C-alpha cells in the first residue's frame, strides 16, 4: 500500500467534521445513485463471458482474494485450525487465500495456524455483528484482537446512528477504532442490507473513507441481502472517486452470499471495469466467503482435467 498517507482535500478540511449537519451537507452533496441505472450496469457486467485462459486467471485471483471466514457461535479452536489448514493449502495446486476471518477470541489460534505463510488474520470486532455496545466496549474489543495478533480488524458501523442522520458519531467511532488498530488494517462494514438504498451506500462509503478506513466492506453475512453486484458497484465507484480526489486507494470487500465461481468472476469483472487494474490485487479487493473456495477449487480441477469434480472430493473444513 504505497498510497498510505494520501489525503483528499475534504479530509484536511476540519469544518467538515464539526457536526452532523456539516457532514450531512457533504454526504448529501455527493451525486445521487439511480437504482435502476446501477442495476442495469451491474447486469451488463454480469453478462460478460469469461472463458479459457481468462477464467483460469480469474479463479486463482479469486482464491488469492478470499477472506476465508467462520463467524459462528459454535466456532472452536479445532474449527479454526482446520480453516487455517485449508487457507494455507486449499489443495489441487491452488494458491493460498488472502486471510482467515474469525471472532476476536479465536485470534491466537488463527495466528498460530497461519504463522509464517503471509496469510493475514482478520478479526471482526466492535460488538460484531450488530454493533450495539458502548464505545469503550467496542474499542476494548478491537484492542484485544490487535493485541492477540490480528493483522486486520473488521468493524461494523452504527447503522442506527447512520439511518437517523447522526453522521458525526458514526464518523468519530470509526476514527476511534482506527486509532485503536495501531498497525492493523481497518475494514469498515457498512451492512448495506440495512442501509437499504444505494444513495446510503455511497454516503456510508465516503463517511468510512474520510474517517480512515483501509477497506470498505458490504456486510456481516448475518443480514440478508448481503453482498450484491449493484452495491459493490457503487462502493467501487466510491473508492475510485476517492482516489481520484487525491485520497489513498481504499480496498473493497463484498462479503456474504458469494458462493460460486460464477459469482466470484462477476465481482472481478466489476472491479476490472469500474475501479480498474490497481484494485485487482488482494491488497485492495477481497471476497468474504466460506463455501466459495470449494466451488472455485472444483472449477479449477475441471479446467485442468477437463472433467467435473464433485463436492465429495472437496474437503469440508
Amino acid at each position, binding site marked *: 500500500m504505497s498510497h498510505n498517507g494520501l489525503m483528499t482535500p475534504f479530509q484536511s478540511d476540519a469544518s467538515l467534521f464539526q457536526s452532523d449537519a456539516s457532514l450531512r451537507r457533504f454526504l448529501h452533496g455527493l*451525486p*445521487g*445513485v*439511480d437504482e*435502476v*441505472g*446501477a442495476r*442495469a*450496469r451491474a447486469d*451488463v457486467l454480469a*453478462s*460478460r*463471458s*469469461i*472463458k*479459457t*485462459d*481468462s*477464467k483460469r*486467471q*480469474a479463479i486463482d*485471483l479469486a482464491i488469492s482474494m478470499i477472506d476465508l471466514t467462520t463467524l459462528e457461535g459454535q466456532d472452536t479452536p479445532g474449527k479454526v485450525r482446520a480453516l487455517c489448514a485449508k487457507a494455507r493449502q486449499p489443495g489441487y495446486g491452488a494458491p493460498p487465500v488472502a486471510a482467515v476471518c474469525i471472532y476476536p477470541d479465536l485470534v491466537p489460534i488463527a495466528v498460530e495456524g497461519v504463522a509464517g505463510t503471509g496469510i493475514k488474520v482478520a478479526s471482526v470486532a466492535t460488538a460484531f455483528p450488530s454493533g450495539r455496545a458502548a464505545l469503550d466496549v467496542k474499542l476494548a474489543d478491537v484492542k484485544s484482537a490487535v493485541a492477540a495478533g490480528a493483522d486486520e480488524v473488521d468493524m461494523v458501523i452504527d447503522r442506527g446512528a447512520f439511518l437517523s442522520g447522526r453522521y458525526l458519531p458514526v464518523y468519530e467511532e470509526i476514527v476511534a477504532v482506527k486509532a485503536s488498530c495501531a498497525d492493523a488494517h481497518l475494514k469498515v462494514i457498512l451492512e448495506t442490507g440495512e442501509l437499504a438504498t444505494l444513495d446510503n451506500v455511497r454516503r456510508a462509503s465516503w463517511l468510512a473513507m474520510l474517517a480512515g478506513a483501509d477497506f470498505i466492506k458490504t456486510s456481516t453475512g448475518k443480514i440478508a441481502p448481503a453482498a450484491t453486484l449493484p452495491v459493490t458497484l*457503487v462502493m467501487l*465507484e466510491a473508492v475510485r472517486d476517492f482516489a481520484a480526489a487525491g485520497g489513498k486507494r481504499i480496498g473493497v470487500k463484498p462479503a456474504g452470499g458469494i458462493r460460486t465461481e460464477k459469482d466470484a468472476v462477476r465481482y*472481478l469483472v466489476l472491479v*476490472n*471495469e469500474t475501479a480498474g*487494474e490497481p484494485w*485487482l*490485487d488482494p491488497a485492495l479487493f477481497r471476497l468474504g466467503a466460506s463455501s466459495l473456495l470449494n466451488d472455485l477449487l472444483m472449477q479449477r480441477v475441471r479446467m485442468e482435467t477437463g472433467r467435473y469434480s464433485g463436492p465429495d472430493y472437496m474437503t469440508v473444513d
Partner: protein
Amino acid sequence: MRFEYAPAPESRSVVTLRDSYGLFIGGEFAGGSSVFKTISPATEEVLAEVTHGGPEDVDRAVAAARQAYERVWSVMPGRDRGKYLFRIARLIQERSRELAVLETLDNGKPIRESRDVDVPLTAAHFFYHAGWADKLGYAGFGPSPRPLGVVGQVIPWNFPLLMLAWKIAPALACGNTVVLKPAETTPLTALLFGEICQQADLPPGVVNIVTGDGSTGHALVAHPGIDKVAFTGSTEVGREIARMCAVSGKRLTLELGGKAANVVFDDAPLDQAVEGIINGIFFNQGHVCCAGSRLLVQESVADEVLEALKRRMTTLRLGDPLDKNTDVGAINSRAQLDKITDLVAAGDAEGAQRWAAPCPLPERGFWFPPTVFTEVSQAHRIAKEEIFGPVLSVLTFRTPAEAVEKANNTPYGLSAGVWTDKGSLILWMASRLRAGVVWANTFNRFDPASPFGGYKESGFGREGGRHGLEAYLDGPGGGDV
C-alpha cells in the same frame, strides 16, 4: 493485475446460411431476375446472394398480398389472427439464438445487443400485438375499426429484425397484409422471418418479403395496389416518399432521422448519467435514429462529466461482433463509414476538439472508434446533422431554459433525455422538449406498449402502444397525406 478477457465468440454453427435466397412471395421462396451479395461488415466476407426484386416482383408480391387480404386475412376473426401472431412470437423466441447470430453477422452489431435487445424486443412486439388482434374494438377507434388493406413497408439496416417487427406486427394484428422491403445491406433476418411465417403456417401472401435496393423500395412505394406506406429511414428518402404518396389516397407514416439532445443537469446521478450517455450514442455503433448524439451538459459539471465519460469510453470493447464481450461492433457499410468520416472531418475543420477512445481497429471490415467532440457550437455541422455513427457532440448550458432552447434548436424531434434527481425538473423539461420520446434518467429504452415517433423532420405517426394501431386502421387520423 491485468485481466484480459479471452475471446468468447458465439458459435456461427447455429445458423445455416444458404448460398442464395429468393424472394418470399405468396408463402414461397422463389428466385428473381438478378441477384446481389450481402456481406458481413465486420469481415467483408460474402454471406449469401440475395435476389434483387424488380418491378415485376413487386407486382407479384402486391397481388399476393391483395389476394390474401381479401380472401383470408381481413375476414378472419381477430382471435384467429392473434393465434398466428402468438405462434410467430413463440417461434422467434425458440429460434432466438439463430436470429441473433444472423443479425450480428449481417449487420455488424455486437451479439450482446442482438441477443439481449433486438431479438427479445422483436418477440415482445409480436406478443404485444397478438394481444390486440381480438380487442381492436376497445382501442378507442370505434367499435369495429377496419384494416386499410395492403401495406408497403420499407425498413432500415440499423435494427433489421426489430424494425420488421415494429412494421409487421401491428399491420397484421389490425388485419392488413404486407409487402416488406428490407434494407439492401441487411436482408437475411427478414428472409429467415419468412421461414418462420412458413413454420407458423401463416396463410400465404399475408407477409411478403421483397429484397433489393432503393429502386425496389421505389417500385413498392409507387405501386398503385398499395393502400398504405410505412417507412423508417433517412429524412431525405422520407421526403421523396412523401412526395410520391401525395394525393394518391395512400396513407403514410414516416419515422426518420434525429439529432437527440441528452441533457445532463448538475444534480444528476452522474455515474448512471455517464452510462446513459454511453448507451445513448454508442449503443448499436450510434446507428440509432433516436441516438443521444448531442450531449447538453450543465456547465457546472461539464468538466467532471467529460472526464468520467472519457474514462468510461476507454473501457468500451470494440471488435468481433460475435464475441459475447464486445460492446461496439462494426459500422454497417462502407458508405456509412464514409459518411461518418466526412462529418468527423467537418468537425475537425470547423474547430471542434476531437477525442477518440484508444482502441485498435480490426484491419478488415468497417470500423470507427467511439469519438467525442468538445468545444462544439450549435452552428457546427456535427451539432446539426445526423451522423448516425459513434460520434458524440458535447455542448454546455447554464439554465434549464437554455437547455430546452438548445435541445429544441434542431429540425429533428425524435427523442431526448433528461438526467436529474429532481422530479419536478423532469416534468418541466418533458413538457417543453419537442421530441416524440423523452427519457428520464435512462436512454434508448424501448417497449412495445410505448408509442414511438417524431416531431418535425423526424416524421409523423407513432409505432407501438395503442397509438401505433391507428396507423393501420381505417378511421380518423392515420397520417393521410
